[in-house]
C-alpha cells in the first residue's frame, strides 16, 4: 500500500494501485499475479504525468523509449499512437512492462518521484502492449527489400529475438538457432508464468517468425555446428546471444547432497517443463516441506515463489546482505513478502548436513554484518565470528545467479573472452572475431531483459552497416 500524500499544486502524488490476485489465492496457482490496469486506471495514472520538458524518465530507460509521448497518447485516448511511439524503441513492451526493474530505471528518474510516487511507467507500458495484443492487430512492420545477405542468430532469448527481428526488417535472411525445445531464453525457462505468461513470449516468437525468420530449435551451436562452420557455409555474419546459463554454486561442504537444486534446474523443471502440471506433464519436481532459497535477486524471488506454489509449507529466502541491497525487482520482493515467504537477511550458508542417506536435512549458517562498500558500491557483508547456527531445511535452491554459457566460447578459439567468461566486444557489440557480434548476458555476465534487447538492437544495426558496405 502506498503512503497517502497530500497533492500539491494540482500534482497527484499517489499512483494507481495494480490490481492483483489475493496472496492467499495466488499461493496456490501459477496464474499471473498482477492483473493489469483497467482503461480507467490507465487513464488516471497517465493523467498524473506532467510531461516534463527535460524528459528525465527517458534517460533512465536503457532503450530510451519516448515515455512522455507514449503517455501523452494515452492521455489523449489514442492507444494506436501510443503503441507506435513505444515500438519505435522496443519490440517487447508487453514483456518489459512486466519485468523491467523500473524502480532503478525509468521510474527512478521520474520527476514525481522526488515528492511522491513516480509515474507507473512499466504498468502503463504493459497496459498499452496488452491492449494491442487483445486487438489482434497484426500490422506487419515495413520490411526492407532483400539484401541477399544471411545472418545466424545464436540463442533465442530477448537479445536473440530482438536481433533477429531487426535484421529481418532490414532485409536480411535470418536463421535463429536455439538449444532448447522452445524459443524465448530466460523468458521461458527462468521467469515463471505467474510473472510473465508464456503466451506473451510465444506471441513475440510468432511475430519474429512472421518476419520470415527461420527458427531452428534443438540445435546447439558449438555441438551441431561451430561459429566457424557457420561462417564457412553461407552465413555472412553472426549475432551471439547465448546468455548466462551456467549455474553458480556456493562451493561449501555438502552442496551436492540430494534435494539441493540449482535455481536453473529448479526453474527449468517448474517453468519450461511445467512440473506444476505434473503428472499431466511428465517432468516431476520433488519438493520438501521447508525450503531455503539462497540469494537475493530475481532468480531467488522466482524460486521462492515457485516453491510456495508447488506446495512447500515454509519458504525462507536467505540473503547475505540486507533488504536494501537486494538486486531483485522491488515489486517482486513485496509480492514475495505478501506470499508469506520469510526473509533471513545478513545470513550466509556455510555448509549442508545430510540426513544419513545423502538427503539434505539442515543448513549451517553464519550471521553477517555490513562493512565498507565494495566495487559495486554496495556494502560488503562480513561474517560475525561465533554467530554460527543451524537451520532445518529439507530442500535447498541455490539462486546465486549465473555465469556466461561457455559452449560457444569453448568451441571458438579466436573469440576473445574476459576472465569472467564473457565475450569481449566494443560498444556496438563487435567481437574480436571477424563477422561476429554479441550482446546480452553473454557479454554483460547477467543484466536485464531490456539491456539485452538494447544491445541486440545496436549490434543488429552494426551488422547491417557491415553487410551493406
Amino acid at each position, binding site marked *: 500500500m502506498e503512503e497517502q500524500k497530500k497533492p500539491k499544486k494540482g500534482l497527484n502524488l499517489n499512483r494507481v494501485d495494480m490490481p492483483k490476485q489475493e496472496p492467499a489465492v495466488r499461493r496456490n496457482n501459477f496464474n499471473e499475479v498482477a492483473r493489469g490496469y483497467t482503461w480507467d486506471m490507465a487513464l488516471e495514472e497517465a493523467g498524473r504525468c506532467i510531461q516534463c520538458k527535460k524528459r528525465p524518465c527517458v534517460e533512465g530507460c536503457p532503450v530510451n523509449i519516448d515515455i512522455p509521448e507514449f503517455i501523452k497518447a494515452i492521455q489523449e485516448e489514442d492507444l494506436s499512437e501510443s503503441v507506435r511511439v513505444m515500438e519505435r524503441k522496443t519490440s517487447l513492451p508487453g514483456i518489459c512492462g512486466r519485468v523491467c526493474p523500473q524502480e532503478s530505471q525509468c521510474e527512478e528518474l521520474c520527476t514525481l518521484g522526488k515528492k511522491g510516487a513516480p509515474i507507473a511507467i512499466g504498468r502503463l507500458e504493459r497496459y498499452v502492449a496488452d491492449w494491442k495484443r487483445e486487438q489482434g492487430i497484426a500490422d506487419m512492420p515495413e520490411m526492407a527489400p532483400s539484401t541477399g545477405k544471411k545472418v545466424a542468430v545464436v540463442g533465442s532469448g530477448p537479445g536473440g529475438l530482438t536481433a533477429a527481428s531487426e535484421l529481418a526488417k532490414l532485409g536480411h535472411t535470418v536463421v535463429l538457432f536455439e538449444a532448447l525445445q522452445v524459443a524465448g531464453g530466460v523468458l521461458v525457462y527462468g521467469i515463471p508464468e505467474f510473472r510473465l505468461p508464456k503466451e506473451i513470449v510465444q506471441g513475440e516468437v510468432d511475430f519474429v517468425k512472421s518476419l520470415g525468420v527461420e527458427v531452428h530449435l534443438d540445435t546447439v551451436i558449438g555441438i551441431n555446428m561451430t561459429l566457424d562452420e557457420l561462417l564457412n557455409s553461407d552465413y555472412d555474419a553472426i549475432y551471439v546471444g547465448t546468455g548466462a546459463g*551456467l549455474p553458480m554454486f556456493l562451493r561449501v561442504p555438502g552442496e551436492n547432497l540430494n534435494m539441493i537444486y540449482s535455481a536453473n534446474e529448479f526453474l527449468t523443471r517448474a517453468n519450461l517443463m511445467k512440473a506444476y502440471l505434473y503428472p499431466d506433464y511428465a517432468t*516431476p519436481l520433488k519438493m520438501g516441506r521447508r525450503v531455503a532459497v539462497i540469494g537475493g535477486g530475481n532468480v531467488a524471488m522466482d524460486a521462492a515463489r515457485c516453491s510456495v506454489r508447488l506446495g512447500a509449507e515454509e519458504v525462507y529466502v536467505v540473503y547475505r546482505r540486507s533488504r536494501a541491497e537486494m538486486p531483485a525487482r522491488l515489486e517482486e520482493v513485496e509480492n514475495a513478502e505478501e506470499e508469506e515467504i520469510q526473509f533471513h537477511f545478513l545470513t550466509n550458508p556455510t555448509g549442508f548436513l545430510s540426513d544419513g542417506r545423502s538427503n539434505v536435512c539442515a543448513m549451517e549458517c553464519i550471521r553477517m554484518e555490513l562493512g565498507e562498500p565494495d566495487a559495486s558500491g554496495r556494502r560488503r557483508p562480513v561474517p560475525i565470528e561465533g554467530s554460527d547456527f543451524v537451520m532445518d531445511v529439507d530442500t535447498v535452491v541455490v539462486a546465486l545467479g549465473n555465469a556466461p554459457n561457455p559452449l560457444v566460447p569453448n568451441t571458438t578459439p579466436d573469440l576473445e573472452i574476459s576472465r569472467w567468461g564473457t565475450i569481449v566486444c566494443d560498444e556496438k557489440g563487435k567481437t574480436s572475431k571477424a563477422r561476429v557480434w554479441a550482446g546480452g548476458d553473454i557479454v554483460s555476465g547477467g543484466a536485464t531483459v531490456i539491456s539485452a534487447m538494447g544491445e541486440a538492437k545496436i549490434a543488429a544495426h552494426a551488422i547491417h552497416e557491415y553487410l551493406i558496405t
Partner: protein
Amino acid sequence: MFPIIEREELAPSVHRIRVEAPLVASGVQPGQFAILIIDEKGERLPFTLSDWDREKGTVDFVFIAIGKSTGQLASMNPGDKLDHFVGPLGRPTHIEKFGNVTCIVSGYGIAAMKPVIKALKEKGNSVTTILQSPDPERIFGREELEEISDRVILATGGDAGFTDPTSLKPLQALVENHKEQPVDRILIMSSFCLMRLCCEITRPAKIPTFVHLAPLMVDGTGMCGACRCVVEGETRFACVDGPEFDGHLVESWDVLMARRCTYADELIGQQSFQCATCSQW
C-alpha cells in the same frame, strides 16, 4: 519432428528404436547421447546412441521401459514422430590403442557400448566383454557382442549354467590374472552400483577404469547442474564433462546414487534401483 523408422523388442521391456535425426547422425561419436521429448507434455529423456547411419541420417538407441515416459516410448511405432531430438551430447568415449581392454556392460549398456567396442577394435585393441544380465530371458545383443569382441564372458542370474550372476567374479578373475595377462583399461556402462563395485575391485591393481555416469539430467548442455558429480575434488557436470569419467577419481558415490534416485518409486522395475543403501528405499 523426428520420425521413428523402426522399433524392435529385443527382450522383455527392452526396445530398440531408430529415429531419423540427420543433424545428430552427422556428428555422433561412440559414447555420446541424445535427449528426446516425446510430445508437448513430455520430459527430456537422455539415451545413449547405439548405432547410426550418417548417410541415411538415422540413429539408434536401446532403452528399457522402466517408467512412465519409457513406457510411452515403448508404445510408439514406425511412422510416429518424436517432438524433439537433440544431440550428440556429452564427450565421446576416449578411444586409442590401449592394448587389452575389458568392457563391462549391463542393461542398456549392452547396446550403448557397441560403437565403443567397434572403435576400440578399429584402433587395434583386443576387447573382452563381460555381459551381465539378471536372468537368461533378458539377455539381448549377445551375438552382436560376440561378433565384435574378441571374447564375451556371460554373467547371468537364474540357473542357466553360466559363470556367475554378476560381473564381479569374472572381473575379479581378470584382475587376479592381471600380472600374467595385463588388462590395460576397463570401460563400464551399467548401473551405478555395479560401476562402483567394479571400481573398488580394480583400484588396488591400479587398472585404469572408466565409468559412464548417467545421473538425472534436464537440459544436457551444462545449464542446470542436475547431473553434477564430484571428480577429483571438483564438481563436474556429467552431460558436458562426461559421461565418461575415471572411476577411481569419482567421489561421493552415495550422494551420486541418492541424487540419481530422487524420482525412484515403486513403479521402477530396474534392479539397480533396489539396492539396500539407496536413499530412496
